[in-house]
């Protein structure tokens, strides 16, 4: 038997092909960039793009996990906003508070995620609706905490966002990269990782197989909450303060790289490496559009079209009729 050809076919049918789609698009954008400006391909610009990807990367990682189980987390934006307010509000310029507050805020992300997961598993309401609801609740709580930018962080807190490692690699983006690689490894090589895929593929079957379906769902929302809080800490580092609407844009934008990277919204297929490339694609596209001098209006059109183009490449053939 031609094991080779069949594994090749599998390779192209499986989640892996997503990576090639995105890599292809990345290369395409890069070529366009190089042809329009000689400042585009400078290491300075590319390292900037790398740095700019950090926030989206962190939040999309959690989102990927939720989507892999066939769910979605629309509360990430509000979690980010609340966490960012708490981070700078509680630290309030006091260096000795930095570590305890970071730990506390991450814990809050975890607790919120657990609440999301709990409501989803107990009520059976679709995650889209549940997280939309908790997102609203959290936004309200955020505004109770403060109506405007609150608190401040000590100097040096911006190291996460702006710090550069040797050779100019951004600290935050490199951290995100490492976390992604770790997540990819764990997803592939731990039981829980495999169970995430199984639950997303068929939650009913997963329950019948005795897999800890509820625990898995709890876990992904906990992680999604955790990474949203981590994103908030990053944003406070980048902005110097927490604000009540800081995360709002991330709710929908965190989904784009996931899907562009080949993870199916239906669950069970895809992976975090695709998401990482999706994040790079989004960052590079934004950067390129800034170089292209397209009118801002057409930038929106271009973004929409790139999304459509990317996901249209994942068409699955329908067997019957």
């Amino acid at each position, binding site marked *: 038997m031609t094991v080779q050809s069949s594994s090749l076919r599998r390779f192209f049918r499986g989640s892996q092909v997503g990576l090639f789609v995105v890599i292809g698009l990345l290369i395409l954008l890069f070529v366009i960039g190089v042809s329009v*400006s000689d*400042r585009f391909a*400078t290491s*300075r*610009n590319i390292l*900037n793009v790398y*740095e*700019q990807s950090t*926030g*989206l990367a962190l939040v999309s990682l959690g989102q990927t996990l939720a989507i892999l189980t066939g769910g979605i987390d629309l509360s990430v934006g509000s979690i980010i906003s609340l966490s960012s307010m708490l981070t700078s509000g509680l630290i309030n310029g006091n260096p000795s508070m930095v570590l305890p507050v970071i730990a506390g805020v991450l814990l809050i992300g975890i607790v919120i995620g657990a609440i999301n997961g709990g409501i989803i598993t107990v009520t059976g309401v679709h995650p889209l609706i549940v997280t939309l609801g908790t997102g609203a609740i959290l936004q309200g709580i955020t*505004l109770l905490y403060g*109506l*405007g*930018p609150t608190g401040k962080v000590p100097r040096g807190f*911006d190291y996460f*966002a*702006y710090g550069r490692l040797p050779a100019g690699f951004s600290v935050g983006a490199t951290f995100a990269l490492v976390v992604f690689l770790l997540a990819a490894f764990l997803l592939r090589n731990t039981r829980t990782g495999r169970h995430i895929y199984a639950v997303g593929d068929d939650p009913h079957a997963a329950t019948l197989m005795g897999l800890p379906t509820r625990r898995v769902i709890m876990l992904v929302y906990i992680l999604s909450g955790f990474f949203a809080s981590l994103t908030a800490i990053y*944003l406070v580092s*980048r*902005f*110097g*303060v927490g*604000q*009540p*609407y*800081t995360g709002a*844009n991330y709710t929908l934008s965190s989904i784009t790289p996931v899907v562009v990277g080949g993870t199916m919204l239906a669950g069970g297929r895809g992976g975090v490496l695709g998401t990482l490339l999706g994040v790079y694609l989004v*960052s590079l596209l*934004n*950067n390129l559009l*800034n*170089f292209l*001098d397209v009118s*801002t209006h057409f*930038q*929106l059109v271009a973004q929409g079209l790139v999304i459509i183009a990317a996901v249209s490449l994942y068409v699955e053939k329908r067997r019957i009729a």
Partner: protein
Amino acid sequence: DTYKGVPRTFLFNPSMDVCLKDTAEYKKNGPYVIGFSNAGLGDSWRVVMLHSMEKAAAEHKDQIKQLLITDAGHDDAKQVSDIQDLTSRGVDLLIVSANTEQAVDPAVTRAMEQGIPVVMVDRRVSSDNFVTFVTASDAMMGRLFAQWIVEKLNGKGNIVILGGQAGSSPNEQRVKAAMQVLDQYPDIKILDTVYSDWSPVKGKQVMQAVIAKYGKNINAVLSTHGLQTPGSIEAFLEAGFKPGEIPPHTTSDVNGPMQLALKNKVPMLEVGYPPAMGGTAIQVALNVLGGKKVPCTYEINAQIATTDGDETPSIRPDLHIKDMVMPNAPPDMLVTGGMGPDYNPSTFKIDYPQ
């Protein structure tokens, strides 16, 4: 007659110290590449501001090689990236309209540290790490709105605050300044603070509910901008208020509320927040690159107008709403843009150096 209002310095001059900045270190030979990082578009005010900037750039083609414009879509993260990208593209000077005061601060500070002068327009960053700030004052708007209402009501009455978006900086700053004034008058009661998200539609919806609840007990509406004011006036009309019965409203810039005020005899105060500051920013930018001394803050005079007979001791504008309004123009038109009579934002096109 003697002036009976509150001290004018308090009302009209938010920054009391006059300061000038030496910009010799930024002096450079032209023609220049100037970058503009815009917070976003989305309402007509911001469009007109952008157009006034393009117009000014077109008028200085000899000195400006390129005006590079990015749009952050009201997203802090994108604006920080935009500023980095503009820096990567090698601009000589950055004009920034910050989406939020604090979030964009580190990026602006970094640009300055790299030796790129930054001129803020419309919305500044929280630190002083920029060369100068071209603005009209949110705080002043808030104070004027509040003082006028207080005086209209003789220090006693119930008001409703119709805000923009809860938590957004222009709204919060205007409301905060207004509260400083209102807090001094114990007989002024705030019935409710509601939010329109800067939308006339939402403004009308919330005001309908507020009117249903308080009816004629509402003595004035403090609206933090003109975008939502027409929704409120419409809500009063629909609730059966006759012309002359609608309580005083505040507004700014937008044609529609002024049209409504004249038609329905609504006492009104307009404090402009002129989008023409976009063009001013270009002038200031050229001054900076020419090494000239510039003021630390470049305050554009706001046009202030009231409906006839609605002047108060503190607020006696030279301008009347009936002279400002453009009766046959569309209601969403901005009357404070300074773009000339033929200007239409939808069709505006100018050959600025791109």
